[in-house]
């Protein structure tokens, strides 16, 4: 077993992707930043001394403390506190966790939906393909934020108010996911059209392999490269969409702050001088999305043989 892992590691080390990775400073820096962010937000309870959701640990006396390096700053609140005396850094990390979970689940949801529809549409063709592709066209004419607002509005109408706060996260995941799937459907359909005309697919058909097995065992692994690339960039988009919706007040409830709700809360104090409450969550969001996009760009360049120098 150890030997197996060792072999796999050697294969990775030997591959062109690894080579291109260690030759690209942008890819290394952005993935280091991402790993740090992921690590800190998922082990936030261990890392931070404060729990912003435990009211007993909060003291209104600490409210509106500016960042530690300013005149009135306290060393124990590095990035200052908000209006309820919550430590900004801890709150951002807690919020980032929600944002990451929502973004990731949304992108997985739209990936499964989009690739499933795109793959089958490309493979079977005919009327089914036409219907699926026209659906994506319709979907693309509706801005994704509008789509998400619509889904959220409908969900609010159907689900009763008490349950809504608990369900809010799932509604949000669904709303973002449903607005991102056409990208995946288009890319995977196009890739499937190329792959299904290759001889290895014909060979499997002649052997008598069923359509399902051909699609998921043979074609799917071969179309994953482009899907992975837009998946990465879509992940950043999903996080931004989550923040936007939360900022607008239709995302996660204010009691479970995400990056978007934090920015909104701080927005109220922006002109009264407490800039840090909105500035730090915003800059955190920018760094997060930017790193993911840089990594996605690097992946596109590496995985696309046409762009190779």
């Amino acid at each position, binding site marked *: 077993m150890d030997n197996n892992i060792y072999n796999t590691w050697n294969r990775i080390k030997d591959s062109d992707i690894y080579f291109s990775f260690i030759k690209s400073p942008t890819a290394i820096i952005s993935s280091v930043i991402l790993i740090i962010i992921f690590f800190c937000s998922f082990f936030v309870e261990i890392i931070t001394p404060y729990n912003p959701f435990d009211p007993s640990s909060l003291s209104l006396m600490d409210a509106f403390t500016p960042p530690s390096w300013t005149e009135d700053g306290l060393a124990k609140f590095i990035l200052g506190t908000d209006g309820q005396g919550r430590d900004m850094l801890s709150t951002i990390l807690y919020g980032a966790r929600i944002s990451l979970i929502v973004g990731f689940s949304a992108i997985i949801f739209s990936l499964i939906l989009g690739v499933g529809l795109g793959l089958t549409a490309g493979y079977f063709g005919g009327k089914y393909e036409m219907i699926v592709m026209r659906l994506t066209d319709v979907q693309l004419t509706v801005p994704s934020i509008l789509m998400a607002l619509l889904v959220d509005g409908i969900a609010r109408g159907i689900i009763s108010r008490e349950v809504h706060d608990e369900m809010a996260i799932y509604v949000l995941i669904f709303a973002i996911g449903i607005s991102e799937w056409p990208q995946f459907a288009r890319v995977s359909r196009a890739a499937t059209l190329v792959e299904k005309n*290759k001889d*290895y697919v014909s060979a499997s058909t002649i*052997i008598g392999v069923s359509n399902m097995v051909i699609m998921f065992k043979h074609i799917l692994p*071969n179309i994953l490269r482009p899907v992975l690339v837009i998946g990465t960039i879509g992940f950043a988009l999903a996080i931004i969409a989550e923040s936007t919706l939360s900022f607008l007040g239709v995302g996660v409830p204010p009691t479970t702050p995400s990056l978007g709700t934090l920015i909104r809360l701080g927005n109220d104090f922006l002109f009264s001088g407490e800039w840090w409450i909105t500035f730090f969550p915003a800059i955190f969001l920018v760094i997060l999305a930017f790193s993911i996009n840089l990594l996605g760009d690097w992946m596109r360049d590496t995985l696309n043989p046409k762009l190779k120098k």
Partner: protein
Amino acid sequence: MSFLKINNLSVNYEMRKEVVHAARNVNIEVNKGEILGLVGESGSGKSTVGNAIINLIDEPGKVSNGSITLGDINLSKDPDNIIKYRGKKIGLIFQDPQTSLNPILTIGEQLIETIQTHLDLSREEAKNRSINLLKEVGIKEAEKRFDNYPHQFSGGMRQRVVISLALCCEPELLIADEPTTALDVSIQSQILKLIKKLTKDRNLAVILITHDMGVIAETTNRVAVMKNGNLVEIGATKEILVSPKEDYTKSLVSSVPPTNKKISRFKIIDKEKRKLVKNNIKILDRWTKKEIKKQKLVEVKNLSKSFDDNFFTENLKNSVMAVNDVSFNINEGESFGLVGESGSGKSTIAKMIVNLFKPSSGEIFFDNVCVTKLKKSIEMMKFRKQIQMIFQDPYSSLNGRLKVKDIISEPIKLHNSSISKNDLNNYIIDLLDSVELTQKSAERYPHEFSGGQRQRISIARALATQPRLLVCDEPTSALDVSIQAQILNLLKDLQEQLNLTILFISHDLPVVRQMCDKIGVLRNGKLCEVSNTEELFLKPKHDYTKELLHLMPKIESLYK
């Protein structure tokens, strides 16, 4: 004093893991008025030498050593200088006429542009000059066609335009890199004749880069043989091809399928002198051997297929008939050849026989059952098992994400789901052994193999279901001649031992002659004639067959 002198040329590609020597100390001289053939298999460095002359070597390659002189100009001394000579003193013809012309400019525009870049002529003069050139390369109504776009020309005509582009500034050296590889036989012979004529008329020095020994034999005065970046032998074409000195040249010449006779096996000259007679292959024990009853295995009746692009109107009148009313029979144990140029419908017939396409009309009988009318997939599976196919392109016919053992085990597991793991492994090893691959290959991925080895994996996969009919769609046209000889030998051995029936599809007449008992000649979807191989080659009945036979490049033309 020779015109072009390549002295000690070395070209290196510095890759991540190693330095590839694409050319090593190559010395070649070309005189005016002669055609020098540069022959070798893929990766031998023949194109590298051609590209080095015009300084078109892609990164990360570079000329590490040597000099190139053209007349009294030293080309390698000043690489920037080459821009002046490229196109003017040196003309170029590339392999694919589809991509070497700009599709959004008329051919006239492209000719005038090239002429005006290098010569100080007015637009009017340049136009006259180009029209004369087009006439010279054999384009009819040159004045009219001058304003046409590349897509309005056929492949052969387009290659003529490319030649006229290469000639438009009166070059003294012409480099033709596989100029006829993408063309059909009949057009190939016209283009080669044109190049020969131009060489004589204009006293050009020509380098003809090709892998086709037939083309070399019919066109060139001298030939240089290359292997792995080294120059193996250089000399008069006749001398080299008739009495080669080096082992490599010998094996190259002996791998070329002769056009004038049928041989039982290709001689493969091997340094290790392996046994040429093969033992019985292991999979024979598993094979439920069919006794040869001299009966029809495949019967094709009035088969037609049209492709209709139009989604809304299924109007058969406007559709192209890819296959038109074709009928033939294949007897059990026989190999049947289908020959035709590109677009003749030969692959379409193959795909209908293996049931990838449904015919528009007509019937295909396999073992006296009409397979085109089967509806249920269970009945279909019985026939899937008995008909297998080998594809042309060894790079796309294997799924790169699966290990070789998984590729081969797929058909076995599918048709024999109760097979034990141990037995399955043994069977895979036996199959690999019967196509002369090592046991270790099973654990590797397709990209670790060469084209010939991939084709062997394809054959192993096809044999896994123990088929009775093997459809081979141009199985060797993507391979080098020496590899082709090995694969053809392998197919012959397998057929002999396993009593396979083979449908062999190819555009290459000499290959078909070696492989088949019976041949059908296709043209534009119609079957011109079907007859026994020897009869077809000695006494062809149809005019088209006669023409094809006359035009195919013959290596034997040198022996006369």
